[in-house]
């Protein structure tokens, strides 16, 4: 068997999921695929449990907000196959008004806190997550601060008002 690389990985995925993979890219050598949210758990499960691929390590789950797009929230998964020394990135774009996606806690227990963090900062609701609440910000915060419609700065700041700088 050849050493697993991005091309072999892509053909394996293409064989197994002929219609599911929407887009592929390889920025800086990191193989990246885009998947629909209804198939993300299937694809993750295949990558994790396939005897050859063995992407057993979930490096991170996070999100990106693109306010100008129709599907404005991109949920990003990073997986690592230790035995093959290979990484893969999966992106799922979902509706920003009602961001819901199945939870990956069915595959990795460690997804629990990553999904809580993503919920905390972007408001993405992971369905069937065992305990989806804020993890880093204070509990009574009312916004999801990494979404672009909310200001980064604190409104109570007094010494950065424009008139102090002649603006």
């Amino acid at each position, binding site marked *: 068997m050849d050493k697993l690389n991005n091309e072999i990985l892509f053909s394996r995925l293409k064989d197994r999921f002929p219609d599911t993979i929407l887009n592929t890219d390889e920025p800086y050598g990191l193989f990246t695929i885009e998947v629909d949210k209804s198939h993300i758990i299937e694809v993750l499960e295949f990558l994790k449990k396939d005897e050859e691929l063995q992407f057993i390590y979930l490096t991170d789950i996070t999100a990106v907000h693109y306010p100008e797009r129709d599907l404005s929230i991109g949920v990003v998964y990073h997986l690592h196959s230790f035995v093959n020394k290979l990484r893969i990135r999966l992106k799922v774009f979902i509706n920003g008004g009602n961001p819901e996606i199945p939870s990956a806690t069915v595959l990795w227990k460690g997804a629990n806190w990553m999904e809580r963090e993503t919920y905390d900062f972007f408001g993405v609701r992971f369905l069937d997550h065992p305990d989806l609440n804020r993890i880093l910000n*204070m509990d009574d915060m009312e*916004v999801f601060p990494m979404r672009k419609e909310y200001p980064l700065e604190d409104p109570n700041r007094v*010494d950065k008002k424009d008139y102090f700088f002649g603006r």
Partner: protein
Amino acid sequence: MTNIKLGAAPPGVEGAGFFATSLDKVIGLARANSLWPLPFATSCCGIEFMATMGADYDLARFGAERPSFSPRQSDMLLVMGTIAKKMAPVLKQVYTQMAEPRWVIAVGACASSGGIFDTYSVLQGIDEIIPVDVYVPGCPPRPEAILDGVMRLQEIVKNESLNRRNTPEYKALLEKYGIQTNNG
């Protein structure tokens, strides 16, 4: 011969074998020279405070020999470092657990105004949640600056009313912060 300089006595009436002054002044002098600090250190200003407590700068010279680490037995709360909003209720609880009379020094830019952390997760100065007596500027301030802040607080303590806790201004101030004041 010793080169230790004694503090000046408060103004009063002196005669053979007696010295009379007002109780306010004596108590103020006693309080000012035994301020027990409660260090609430969350970041680099706390490191400067460690130098301040160390032998070179020696905060103990000013009667602050015993860092308390318990709010119940301390007079001077030193808040040193960035206070995240999630930490704010903890800081407020520490302050309310301190017995009167109590004073607060905000050490460094973060505790005074949020500093460089103008962001959604950081408290923009601890005076949003508790009253502050002295602000020490610097990022972080040198130990000399912290000592200067403590000496300024000593001046406040010497000159303020013995019963500050019962003055209507003080009660109004605490009520503005939502802190209970029914302490007799």
